[in-house]
Every structure is written in C-alpha cells, then in structure tokens.
C-alpha cells in the first residue's frame, strides 16, 4: 500500500555531523559494498571499468566551498542519502505499491519484485535519494541496512547501517529520532541538528549537525591575537629581553 502510515513513535534515521565529516567517501563505499550483496541487492553497475561507468549508489558525498554569513570561508563535506521522510511523496506517487514506508519504524523501502521502474518516485524526491539500477531497471534507495539492523544473528554492536560502522571520524550516528531520550535525539538537541529544506514540507527524519564555528584566526587558537611588533609588552618581558629591546630600539 502506498498510503503513508500514521506517524509512529519510533522513527529510525541517521544523524550526520557536518563538523567532523572529512569527505572520505568511506560511507558511500561501505554502503555500495554491503547493499550489493544485501537483501535489497544487487546494486548494479554498468560498464564499471569502462570509459563511461554508470551505477546505482545509495549515498553520495558532495564537497562544497562555503562562505558563512560572518564572512569566514570553510569547506563542507556533505553526504546525501534517503532522509526517510514522514511525508514521503516518493511512496504516495508509486502506482504499484512497490514503494512503502514501514509503519513500525518509518523506514522507506522499495519492493524490488513489484517495482516497474517508472521513475516517478525519483521525480517526487527533492533530495535525489533514489537511483535506478542500470541492469535491473528497478529503483534502488537507502534501506538503513534493514538486513543488518533487523538481523538477530548479528551481535548488537553490528546491528547498525554499514555507513555508520565505516565512518572513520564517527560523523554518522544511527538511532530512534522519535524517542527524545535516545542518544541521537540528545545529540540533535545539543548541537542544533537541522532538517534539509524543511520548507518543502517532506518532514525528513534524518538530521544534519551544522559545522561548529571554525578557529580561523590566530586569536581563536589561543595564540596572541596579533602577531606583529605591537604585541610586545616590555613591562612583562624578562630583564634580558628588556635590555635587548632597549638596545635594538636605539
């Protein structure tokens, strides 16, 4: 059924820390590796080693040059994947019922056996979360690794999405954003986590933690705020330096 379930108490999703993400693409590679062999795989490539490789990926990492409103220049690495929206238009536009949102935890999935590859769900997603599989011709998207998180055969610490486990800077966090007491919800509250383009009304579950203020100027790092000669205070210097200063000032 493509009708959306009523919003539940449990909303599984990701929290991505844009402050610590270094843009290494480990999450994207781990995602590709796991989901190629996972329950919703394969995640095919066409002409993978040829001149124009084409393939479905569920996670893409952009890198930007950003000038903040205060005028500071920074880099921003931005992993982009399905946000498991509450108002998931990709689900309601689906003509076959292949796209669905799980009532129990809000994860948005595609049934690969009933998808007709009409691409309307990809058109309906403002975040570019869905890509067509060039070989199977059906739509692929982030599953939050349901085949890991639902798998009782795995030890508890392995029941996490592959991207979260792979992240070398621990910029990715997985948990229940519907529970205000969960670690991810506390992190969002503490760091002012944001939804992407909330004005579109899709109500994404995933949150992004904005970059902290950068220590860009000498003063921000604990060094004297100004490193030129005016920073020398003769009264505070040792007698030897005071003498050298007097000598050199003649």
């Amino acid at each position: 059924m493509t009708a959306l379930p009523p919003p539940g108490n449990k909303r599984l999703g990701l929290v991505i820390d844009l402050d610590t993400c270094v843009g290494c693409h480990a999450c994207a590679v781990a995602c590709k590796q796991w989901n190629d062999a996972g329950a919703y795989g394969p995640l095919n490539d066409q002409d993978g080693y040829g001149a124009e490789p084409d393939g479905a990926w569920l996670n893409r990492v952009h890198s930007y040059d950003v000038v903040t409103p205060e005028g500071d220049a920074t880099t921003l690495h931005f992993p982009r994947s399905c946000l498991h929206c509450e108002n998931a238009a990709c689900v309601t536009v689906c003509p076959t019922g292949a796209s669905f949102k799980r009532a129990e935890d809000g994860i948005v999935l595609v049934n690969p056996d009933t998808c007709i590859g009409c691409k309307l769900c990809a058109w309906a997603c403002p975040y570019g979360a869905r890509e067509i599989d060039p070989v199977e011709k059906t739509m692929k998207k982030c599953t939050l690794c349901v085949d890991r998180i639902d798998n009782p055969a795995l030890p508890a610490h392995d029941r996490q999405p592959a991207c979260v486990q792979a992240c070398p800077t621990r910029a990715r966090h997985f948990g229940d954003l519907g529970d205000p007491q969960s670690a991810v919800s506390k992190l969002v509250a503490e760091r002012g986590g944001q939804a992407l383009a909330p004005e579109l009304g899709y109500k994404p579950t995933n949150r992004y933690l904005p970059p902290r203020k950068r220590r860009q100027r000498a003063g921000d790092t604990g060094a004297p705020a100004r490193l030129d000669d005016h920073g020398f205070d003769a009264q505070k210097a040792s007698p030897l330096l005071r003498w050298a200063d007097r000598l050199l000032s003649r």
Partner: protein
Amino acid sequence: MHPAASVILFTTLSGAGYGLLFWLGLWLLAGRETLPDLALPALAVGFVLVSVGLLASVAHLGRPLRAWRAFSQWRSSWLSREGMIAVISLAILVALAFALVAGAARGRVDVLALALCVAAALTIYCTARIYSSLRPIPAWHNAWVLPGYAVLAAATGAAWLSLLAALVAQAEALRMVALASLALFVLSVVVKVAYWRHVDRHGAGVDAASALALPAGSRVMPFEAPHTEANFLLKEMGFALARKHGRRLRRIVVMLLCLAPLPVLAAAFLQAGGVLAGAIGVLLAMLAVLVERWLFFAQARHVVMTYYDARPS
C-alpha cells in the same frame, strides 16, 4: 528534466485522442448525428491515438511486463488513477462503437457518449495531475499546468475531429468543430504564454543554504563532485539544452498554435480541398504540442540540481 521521447509521445498522442473522444461524445450527446458516419471513424482514430500513446508510456517503464501492477494504487497515486481511467475510457469507447454498429436506442448511446466525455476529461485531468503534484519541480507544481494540458488536448482533439468530418463530408459538424478549435487554439496561446511568464518569474525553488542545512545567507560553491561520471540523477534531471534555445522554441510553439486553426477553418468553409487543409491543420497542431511538451520537460528544473550546481547568488 530529461525529455524522454516515450513520455512526450504519450502525452501528445493520448492528449489528442482523449480530446477527440471528448468532442465526439459531446457531438453525439447534442443529437446531431443520425447515422454513425462520423462517430465510427472518430472512435477508431481515437482508439489508435490513445492506444499508441499508452503503449509509448509503457515503453518508458524499466520493467514494462509489470505494467499491470500500476492499476492497484488509485487511492494515493495520480499515475495509477490515470492508468485505470485510461483503460476504462477505452472500454467505454468499445461499448459505444458496438452500440452504434448495432443501432442501439438513442438513450443507450447518450449514456455511453456522456460516460465517454467524462472518462476522457478525467483521464486528461489525471495526466496533468501526475506532473502538477510534484513539488520538487517548480515548473510543474503550479496552477497553469492543468489548464495547459486540458486546452491543448481539447484543441488538438478538435483539429482531429474536423479532419474526420472533412473526410466523411459532414459539413455541419465541420463548421462547428472548426469554430470551436479556433477559440481553443487562441486560448491555448494565452494559457501557454501565461505559464511561461509564471515559470520564468518563479526561480529554483530551494536555496542552497537551506538544502545543506546551513545558516541562511551562506554562500555555497561546489568544489568536488560526488562522482566522476554522470549518474542517474544528472541524466534524468540535469537536462539543460533547451535553456539555450528556449526562447526560439517558445516562439515556434506560439507560431504553430496560431497557424494551426487557419487550415482547419479553411477546410470548413472551402468547397474543395477540405481534407488536405484539415490534414495540414492536424499536422501543425500536433507539431506545436510536440515542441511544447519537449520544452515542458527540458526547461523544468528539479530542485535536486541545487546539490550539483549551487552558485552564490
């Protein structure tokens, strides 16, 4: 958005087909036809236009053999609703053709003609809603899309009906349809120009800072793309060719829409050469809609492109 030939053919052909069936239904309801001279050829042509259009739309699917599954989600999906009502229209069309051949009573023909009118109009409505319901594409998510689809379907349908009326030498039908088509083509120019003015004024839809959860006023420039080759998103939604030729192509659409009713009128009021004139009218009308539909896709920008082509404003 990538202007896929399958979808452009589908909306152009089935739009004209359902427009034709709509006018035919009205014509039968008006009780002007005593013998099915015009109705049967019109039903046949409508059937061919709609069927070819629907087959083209199936060709757009990654897995065409699963197309039947699309009839299940009418509760939420405009695409599913459209598929259902399109097939229901065809069933009504076939029933009407049988009723006319069998010489059924006036009342039964009227009921079927009314049903055909309603089903054809609903199909066009659903087709337009597939596009106008998509929020991430501001050029489609606006109030001008539905009237644009409806008026062009009605105008091209009227052009086809006048050609058929010229073929079977039904002078009265021909004159009425020709006058209706003149009004519809003029209206379609007005609606399309208003649509273009609207989409040109309303920009990208989402600002890069908001798309990246950054504070408002941040200036954003991509310095490293997420992938080295084109991917599905760029191929499907990153089409930009028409922005270069957009102005000229729009002028061509307006010119064709203004020219199309002239041969249709000539067919209605000239004694000889009516069929040729009607055919030229249909050709011009279909060409206008093909170019218009191509622009409708090619000039529409999907907000996901904000992640790829963000530029400080």
